[in-house]
């Protein structure tokens, strides 16, 4: 091969192109390569030093949930034909992937009751930032109003992005676990380009989405809702609440926890924002013979023209994870999503009743909850959590890790995997841990 190319050696091939001053001239300082079984053993060893949701009874949620991932989802995501292709730049060779994108969009559109949806953004929090950016492009107003009950990571991502493209952030506080509607209405004015709330919110409470959206209708603001998709089987969908843009974290739809990613974000909107949607959209078309087919459409970036006018810079997104999402939704089916929602509603209620009946545990708010709820502990939360974990139970998220004003708060999440028996076990362990901490405090006081 070298002879055909006309160089004497591999080194010459590089020497003729890479200036001497920037050649490394030594081997990289990395360990030597390993046989496959040793790499496996090493990775397995690392993995075994994590406490996964298989290793403890967990009620941790706060944005990502330990739902069961059906075996069909894994099987399909691992098929070479879905796993390995590049972005579908050649529609003729990618009809499978393009149709999946189209079906995914349709499913998200049905779920949110909004007419257009894209083929995925990275994940939930950055989707919130992307929605705000859309509003900036759409109406140019300088301000974005955000409920404090939006996920802290979403608020952080918004702040980071807004520092670049330029949005002033106005945060609205809470009243008994939900966005303070009066303060919210007061904060919205002619300069408000977008308003953002989360449903259910970070404390597990169901917001009055219609009222929140209504309050913005007299302003130019784009109404943005960040939704958990699972409860959408029973919660009024954004499209029927006056929401303009619904985004969300898709992990709970058939994706793994994966210590936080990769999963996918979804992004749906009213017709008015079709041409401002970020990332890729697959559209239906007909070929020359009239056969139905699918293509990428509205590509305003990547290798295309008007590049600095792009509505986002997203290129590689989360196609494979979105496949997992649509397969999961199809697996649940129209009725299954409702059945799952009703099951979680009942079990969550039971769990809230059971835990708040314990000494030293009370409800953090009285709002309706559908799959997650917050309680207040009369004991140091992080230490209670540690005590429970020693018993093999992870009781939930210590709210103080992200919200200093709720240092005494614990956020408890359910999925279909957590049965009544599991809740009862949690109650036993949590009750004992709180009692033990209170006893310690009593002694030291």
């Amino acid at each position: 091969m070298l002879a055909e190319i006309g160089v004497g050696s591999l080194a010459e091939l590089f020497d003729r192109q890479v200036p001497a001053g920037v050649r490394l001239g030594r081997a990289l300082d990395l360990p030597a390569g390993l046989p496959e079984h040793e790499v496996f053993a090493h990775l397995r060893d690392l993995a075994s030093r994590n406490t996964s949701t298989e290793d403890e009874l967990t009620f941790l949620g706060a944005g990502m949930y330990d739902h069961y991932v059906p075996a069909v989802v894994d099987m399909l995501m691992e098929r070479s034909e879905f796993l390995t292709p590049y972005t579908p730049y050649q529609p003729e060779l990618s009809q499978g992937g393009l149709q999946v994108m189209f079906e995914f969009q349709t499913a998200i559109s049905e779920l949110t009751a909004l007419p257009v949806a894209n083929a995925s953004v990275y994940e939930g929090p950055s989707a919130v930032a992307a929605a705000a950016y859309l509003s900036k492009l759409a109406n140019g107003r300088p301000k974005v109003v955000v409920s404090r009950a939006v996920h802290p990571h979403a608020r952080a991502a918004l702040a980071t992005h807004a520092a670049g493209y330029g949005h002033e952030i106005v945060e609205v506080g809470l009243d008994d676990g939900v966005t303070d509607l009066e303060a919210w209405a007061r904060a919205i004015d002619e300069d408000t380009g977008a308003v953002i709330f989360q449903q259910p919110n970070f404390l597990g409470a169901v917001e009055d989405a219609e009222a929140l959206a209504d309050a913005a209708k007299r302003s130019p603001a784009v109404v943005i809702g960040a939704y958990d998709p699972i409860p959408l089987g029973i919660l009024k969908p954004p499209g029927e609440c006056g929401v303009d843009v619904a985004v969300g974290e898709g992990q709970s739809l058939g994706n793994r926890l994966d210590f936080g990613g990769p999963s996918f974000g979804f992004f749906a909107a009213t017709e008015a924002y079709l041409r401002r949607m970020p990332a890729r959209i697959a559209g239906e078309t007909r070929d020359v013979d009239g056969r139905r087919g699918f293509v990428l459409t509205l590509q305003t970036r990547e290798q295309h023209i008007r590049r600095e006018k792009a509505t986002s810079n997203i290129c590689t997104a989360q196609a494979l994870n979105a496949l997992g999402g649509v397969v999961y939704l199809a697996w649940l089916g129209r009725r299954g999503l409702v059945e799952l929602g009703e099951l979680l509603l009942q079990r969550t209620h039971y769990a809230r009743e059971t835990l708040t009946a314990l000494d030293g545990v009370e409800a953090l708010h009285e709002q309706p909850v559908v799959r997650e709820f917050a309680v207040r502990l009369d004991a140091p939360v992080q230490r209670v959590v540690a005590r429970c974990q020693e018993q093999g139970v992870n009781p939930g998220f210590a709210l103080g890790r992200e919200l200093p004003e709720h240092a005494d708060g614990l956020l408890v999440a359910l999925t279909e995997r957590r049965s009544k028996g599991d809740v009862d076990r949690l109650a036993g362990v949590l009750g004992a841990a709180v009692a033990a901490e209170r006893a310690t405090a009593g002694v030291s006081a």
Partner: protein
Amino acid sequence: MSAVNDNRLRSDPGIPAHAPADAAPVGGDGATPMQRERATTIFEKGAPGRRAFVAPPLDVPEVDAEQLLPARLRRAEPARLPELSEPELVRHYVNLSRRNFDLDSGFYPLGSCTMKHNPRLHERVAALPGHARLHPFQEPARAQGALELMWRLERALAEIAGLPHVSLQPSAGSQGELAGVLLTRAYHADRGEHRSKVLAPDTAHGTNPATVTMAGLEVVKVGTNDDGGVDLDDLRAKADGDVACLMLTNPNTLGLFDSNIEEIAAIVHEVGATLYYDGANLNAVMGISRPGDMGFDIVHFNLHKSFTQPHGGGGPGAGPIAVSDRIAPFLPRPVVVRRAGTAGEAGGGWTFDLDDDRPKSIGKLRGFQGNFGTFVRSYAYIRSLGAEGLKEASETAVLNANYLVARLRALGVADRLPLAFGELCMHEFVLSGAPMKRELGIRTLDLAKRLLDHGFHPPTVYFPLLVDEALLVEP
């Protein structure tokens, strides 16, 4: 298939959910297998009431649902999701998968995409419950293996880039770019400066200008010289005190290593600007030349291009960044840290933690710790190959690309479809289709479609924009 798109973004709601699919037309019409079957979406299959999911029986005392969730907060009509049994579901998607061209189908020379090998081991290790079922809010003390993996991957990427600090957080190359430009802004702001311009060559990938706009800055294009590199005169003319940064891909999207890279770095640094390395083409130079040594301050990696993360038909990926000391204080939070600790033998005496207390940080680009699943795969790759293997991967990529160029020359193809620039290339090369169009009346698009007929995936076409009738080939 025509590229005409009628923008009907949803399946026609008029189609009943279980309209019977017509029998697939069969054989003999010259259509490729991928085109032959009639497209029927999952919404048109199955029958009302079907589902694969089996709900567990209610095991808690039932409470009136209206009491738990008032009607006005409730959904009235179920979302119109598909209704199928599990075998129908599997059959639908398995059959769709067969309408995709993948790495196993044949030669896939799309340019600027790089990763052609997705070792199966990686799917196995990513699926281990200790990875796949690790909650992102698990206490760091109970996620030591994951944090150690991230720390080790950061160290390896730092060594490959020649830059000491790494954040794994960005979700893909583009988010890495955005992080990079925001870091540059923060760096200048910290020094009391606001600089409004970002320089980028006209060969740059589309995400570069889009990113700059998203970061609230302005792109200024820099020209390309006759060798396909940055036009130094144009660069000098445009490099002034209002320039925040130069974004560069090297080797660039023409597959060419810029021989003036040292001088370019000097010019940019002289005006106090930073140098950003778009790492999409990194796998041409691993173990051979390092961006840090070239003078870059910030680098993004595409783990899905250079480090085996499968492309998934358009993601997921990851876009870690490596930066120099002066940029480090602004890195996204949290940062993985290693402390001498009492974690015992397993961690080698070290404890790993997430440090969120970074006052100068640009903040968070996204939730949690980034696309951890991709880190597992890329780390497994780096451990499988080692220093030697990574270098060999780069050498093989460059050798193959040059061999293909030489073969095209030997076969006379180069007469009508010459290299756009120079004689040698790095891991990919750009052909100019202009002579072919002029002399034979064949456009690049025609050529691409004809390759399809032969069962080959065509190369990238009409990119970079700079080259007329471009054909970007990465073997």
